[in-house]
């Protein structure tokens, strides 16, 4: 008797459950005209600081809200709430990333129809969040000038999964001899054509260009919805 292994062919996407929920969220966001932006970066790259600034500047013109994932604390949610917009915390416990089901659960009793823009701050981590679609329209990957120009080459998967790169803490660029051209080349190497913004949430430098870009994105998406 031969011992050829008996193979039973199946084809199952391991992340199917997350993908299905994410697709549901995306449909729901589109229907309600909410443009959704997520933020990923390594721990401490400045997601919360940048987001607080963004929310504060957008609030007079748009109906905005934010969700923030954190392993254990509510610190980031409290900081974001200072902007005056509605903020919800998702405590992930031991999980090092957000999943679509957590976003869905957190939105359960929120009336999204009243929102123009929703921001989702992921847990600080350049590895795990790459695999999980959250139903967002736009994924921002942040890179602070203090963490080195080669982050994109070390974490190509997350940079490739993102739509836009934001270089943060530019007020510190000179002190750490940040090399702009190299950083840009590295970003383009792993994600050709990616749009890059340079900002300092501390001084406000570069925020205008980013906000204009967001306004355009939002306008274009709501056009699509109303057609």
């Amino acid at each position, binding site marked *: 008797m031969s011992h050829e292994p008996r193979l*039973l062919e199946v084809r*199952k996407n391991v992340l199917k459950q997350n993908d299905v929920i994410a697709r549901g969220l995306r449909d729901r966001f589109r229907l309600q005209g909410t443009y959704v932006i997520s933020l990923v970066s390594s721990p401490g790259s400045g997601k919360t600081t940048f987001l607080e600034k963004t929310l504060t500047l957008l609030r007079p013109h748009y109906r905005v809200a934010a969700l923030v994932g954190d392993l254990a604390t509510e610190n980031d949610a409290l900081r974001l709430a200072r902007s005056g917009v509605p903020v919800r915390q998702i405590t992930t416990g031991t999980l090092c990333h957000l999943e679509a089901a957590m976003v869905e659960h957190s939105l359960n009793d929120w009336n999204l129809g009243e929102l123009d823009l929703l921001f989702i701050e992921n847990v600080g981590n350049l590895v795990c969040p790459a695999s999980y679609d959250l139903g967002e329209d736009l994924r921002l990957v942040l890179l602070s000038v203090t963490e080195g120009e080669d982050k994109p080459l070390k974490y190509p998967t997350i940079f*490739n999964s993102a739509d836009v790169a934001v270089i943060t803490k530019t007020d510190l660029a000179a002190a750490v001899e940040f090399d702009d051209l190299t950083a840009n080349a590295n970003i383009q190497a792993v994600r*050709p*054509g*990616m749009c890059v913004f340079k900002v300092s949430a501390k001084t406000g430098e570069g925020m205008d260009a980013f906000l204009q870009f967001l306004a355009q994105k939002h306008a274009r998406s709501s056009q699509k919805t109303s057609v």
Partner: protein
Amino acid sequence: MHELSIAMSIVDMAQEEAERRNVRVEAVHLELGALSGVVKEALLFSFEIACDGTPLQGSRLVVKDVPIEVYCPVCNMPKILASMQWFCCPDCGAQTSEVIHGKELVITALELKQ
């Protein structure tokens, strides 16, 4: 590290399929893309832990690596990337970010106990 939760999903899905078809699993075959965000070594290690105390205890995870395949707009055909740090056509050098393969995280087959 999210490999443990991924390994647990793999075990759950394989077991569900095995029960439905009334078979016993010797090994789970998986396609793993270089852009899946999952580290193979960590996944193999996690799989053993995830199998513990389930009917799949002692089974193997057989991983087939899937390289990154992009569409080159100049050559007008799919190409395999030489490096994931360099999203360029390996032949003509054109930049491309249109990924065709490499994000797979797919159970492709169950190897059955004889």
